[in-house]
């Protein structure tokens, strides 16, 4: 079967005219792919994106004050492009698929007050929730190869024991968004299901592949997911203007060959001339099982991409440490979370770089012996205009037990009646696949 490709470069959409996330971003990639004649190969089949539905978005996000405010058609086509490939994969039309779409999504969290890290809605999370609902998939693994920490993915799946998230990224002390450390391992119900691999600046193919071979692939083998997804950011590239890594097009292609993701979705990558045309060609060829050894950047010289001994020592140590954490995650969870309590509470602060929004979150996590439970998020968004919006959202896990489901729905019903101080109240009822939001205008169910 062929490899599916959705190419949606959104040539008529930009955040602002000179923003890295602008019309021009995939222009040279288009030129390279079209000139290669890749779409004519029998090993590839091109699909046209469709519009994602609002319900698809509501499975992954609480948009403040509503979905319409947070998105444009470009977002719906980008997310819809991923859904088209998800369907093609499940209908056995394709072996695997790559959604080469923009805008990206992996910095979008559950609560969306605005744009963070160029993202409004999370294309992969929307796709995963669709796959779980429509096709009943259980265990999913996401490997994020963007240079930035996939903090949106981490946030959305932090309490989900069925979704394993592994993120490669440049150390949060040296790059946006400043998170993604080894101790962020998952909530009480999903401890160890969130693996962060912070890398030193200037890490090369060698280092990343060492971690792939000695950590990521063994974990995946152990976890045995139904589906592997690649958050295919391309800004680890040695020419990326927004980061400092030393990854090459061939390194990316080889990574895709070894990882063999069922679905890949483009994330960041802003070396639009020197990297993207080559990296995308390499990834597509690797996914289609074609020879990528002819793909190389104009200034590529193999000897320039060797790891220093110092960094290699760090990498080996990191791989050993994280492997131990993975193997011992159950014992470690018991030490980390005292499961005597019914609720765990977390306070945190989130910054939206693109839109200049500050968000304060108070999360209440229901700990249940029978199921992954539910969470209540109270979020206060402080906008650059001085405006403040406060919402409360209830998120029920797919496999929540009857008791938890009733508790969570009961809480939502109560908050609906006592909405004082809240702009919007949300219910994300995944077991029932129903999504509601209630504001001064009344309650609506989010459908199409």
């Amino acid at each position: 079967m062929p490899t599916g490709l959705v190419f949606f470069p959104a040539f008529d959409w930009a955040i602002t005219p000179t923003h890295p996330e602008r019309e021009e971003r995939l222009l040279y990639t288009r030129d390279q792919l079209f000139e290669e004649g890749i779409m004519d190969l029998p090993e590839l089949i091109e699909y046209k994106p469709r519009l994602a539905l609002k319900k698809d978005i509501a499975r992954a996000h609480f948009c403040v004050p509503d979905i319409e405010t947070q998105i444009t058609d470009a977002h719906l086509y980008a997310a819809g492009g991923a859904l088209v490939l998800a369907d093609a994969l499940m209908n056995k039309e394709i072996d695997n698929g790559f959604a080469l779409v923009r805008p990206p999504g992996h910095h979008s969290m559950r609560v969306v007050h605005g744009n963070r890290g160029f993202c409004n809605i999370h294309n992969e999370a929307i796709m995963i929730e669709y796959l779980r609902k429509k096709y009943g998939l259980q265990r999913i693994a996401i490997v994020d190869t963007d240079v930035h920490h996939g903090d949106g993915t981490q946030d959305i799946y932090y309490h989900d024991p069925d979704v394993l998230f592994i993120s490669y990224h440049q150390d949060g002390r040296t790059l946006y968004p400043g998170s993604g450390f080894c101790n962020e391992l998952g909530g009480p119900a999903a401890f160890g299901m969130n693996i962060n691999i912070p890398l030193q600046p200037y890490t090369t193919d060698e280092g990343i592949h060492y971690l792939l071979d000695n950590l990521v692939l063994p974990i995946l083998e152990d976890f045995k997911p139904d589906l592997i997804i690649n958050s295919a950011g391309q800004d680890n590239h040695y020419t990326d203007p927004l980061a400092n890594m030393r990854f090459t097009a061939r390194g990316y292609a080889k990574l895709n060959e070894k990882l063999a993701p069922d679905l890949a979705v483009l994330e960041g990558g802003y070396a639009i001339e020197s990297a993207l045309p080559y990296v995308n060609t390499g990834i597509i060829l690797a996914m289609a099982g074609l020879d990528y050894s002819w793909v190389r950047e104009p200034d590529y010289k193999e000897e320039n991409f060797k790891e220093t001994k110092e960094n290699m020592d760090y990498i080996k140590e990191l791989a050993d440490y994280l492997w131990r954490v993975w193997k011992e995650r159950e014992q470690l969870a018991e030490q980390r979370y005292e499961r005597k309590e019914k609720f765990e509470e977390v306070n945190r602060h989130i910054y939206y770089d693109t839109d200049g929004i500050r968000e304060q979150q108070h999360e209440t996590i229901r700990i249940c012996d029978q199921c992954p439970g539910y969470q209540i998020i109270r979020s206060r968004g402080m906008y650059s205009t001085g405006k403040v919006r406060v919402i409360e959202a209830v998120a029920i896990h797919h496999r929540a037990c009857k008791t938890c489901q009733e508790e969570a729905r009961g809480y939502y019903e109560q908050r609906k009646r006592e909405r004082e101080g809240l702009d919007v109240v949300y219910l994300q009822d995944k077991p029932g696949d129903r999504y509601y939001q209630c504001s001064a205008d009344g309650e609506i169910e989010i459908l199409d």
Partner: protein
Amino acid sequence: MLIGLDVGGTYTDAVLLDGQQVIKKVKTPTDNEHLLDTLVSALDPLLDAAQGESLERIVLSTTLITNLIATNRIEPAALVIIPGPGLNPYTYDYHVPDTFLLSGAIDYRGREIEPLDQQELKKCAEEINKKGLKKAAVVGKFSQRNKKHEETVATYLKEHIPDLCVLMGHQVTGRLNFPRRIHTTLLTLATQENYNSFYSEILKLLKKRGITAPLYILKADGGTLSFELSAAKPVETIFSGPAASTLGVLALTPEGETSVVVDIGGTTTDLALILSGRPLFASRGARVGDRLTQVRAFATSSAAVGGDSCLEVENGALKIMPYRKGPAYCLGGACPTPTDAMRVAGLTELGDQQKAIRAMEMLGEGLKLNPQETAELVLDKTTEKIIAEIEKMFLSWEQEPAYRIWELRQKKKVRPNNLVGIGAASPALLPLLGKKMGCNALIPPNAEVANAIGAALAKVNLRLTFHFDTERQFFFIEENGIQEKNREVKTLADAESFAMSRLIEEGKKLGIDVNDQPELVYSEVFNMVRGWRTGGRLIDVCVQFPTGILKQQEEGDH
């Protein structure tokens, strides 16, 4: 007066037109071994009918090139490619034993990223010389954006190999797609000589008859071009048959409507689409056998069923076979066919009624149906098969990828107003098809020579796609290989007016009517932002004198 000639695989149609009025029509079998004889036997009756009145032009649509390619009567050539980084160049098979790979690379902006290697080039020339090859195609990746490497190689080869005929990829087509550019260049190179000798034969033939009217050839994109100019790219004349029939339908149906052109032949039903009065084009270029090219052609499709399709019963189910065993049973053939079913159902007067009934009886035995019921079933199956193919065509048009939000947004589900039938079996079957699809079934007058009418009325067209790089102060035109420096064009508006005036200038050279309206097909600008500042612009502008047919009023003055 105008003459249109369509030399098809089986039949040759010819018409003499006064305006859009048919003065004389001829239909004669095609002799593929002696195309010129066929041409003469179709042309002479028309010349007699014209009675010395002045002929404005003669337009020819021919399968010559298609046949040359199909029968592999093409001359051997060397293929020299400069692939640069990317796809492994051996992924595609160009069927050329003497293929040479050179290092050197140009990128998507037309910048040289790796120089040519003189030693390699020298060796390549020696090899070609040793093998005694007389032709060479030189094609580089992104050569349409910088022809430097192709030209260096071509010049070197010509200097070192006496009498070598070299064709460069950028001269043939500038659309993005390196493998298709290679195929198109090879086919162009391989057919030029045969085409030229065919052309001079025809000129002799016309001269003998004292005809001075200009000779035009119909291209796959439905435009005409003077025969002389077409010799540079003969490959553009492949598949002019479907183009001729689509244009014929365009001439014979109301303006601006959406129609399906249905040509029901012996064992196939050929389909083409006219969307709101515009023929639909194949998105990336025509497929010639197993070669994907960049020849601009109408989108066509074919259902494996026609009037003579052999019908069989297998395990109690009716099957339409993709072959024929001679004509229909009612016309003395060997097996039951859809034509026999049409005869039994009273849709046609063709052939012998008793034989048709017998054919349906034979078929009906295995189906446990009487002849009438059998005929009905056959007609159902036949129309279903055609309708499925029509639906598929519309669907694949709807599913065509698009890369902009507005394009995705504007594409609506479209279904036809008309089914327009040409070809032998169409009059009988079309009303039934129309009824099932809920649209008008039209059999225009003179439908049997629609191809020749289409050829006669085809306009000269011209499409130019400009790509400006204001940072590199450079532009190229996809269709004709032009690459020039340019300092004036800075904005989208500059680019549009530059393109338009160039179009008019080039159009005049081709003899395009000055009253024809040039069109802006699309224009798009990308700001190149470097370091948060706009450094230059990449501008794409496509302008054209569109494909179409000469209008009544323009001819009415005569």
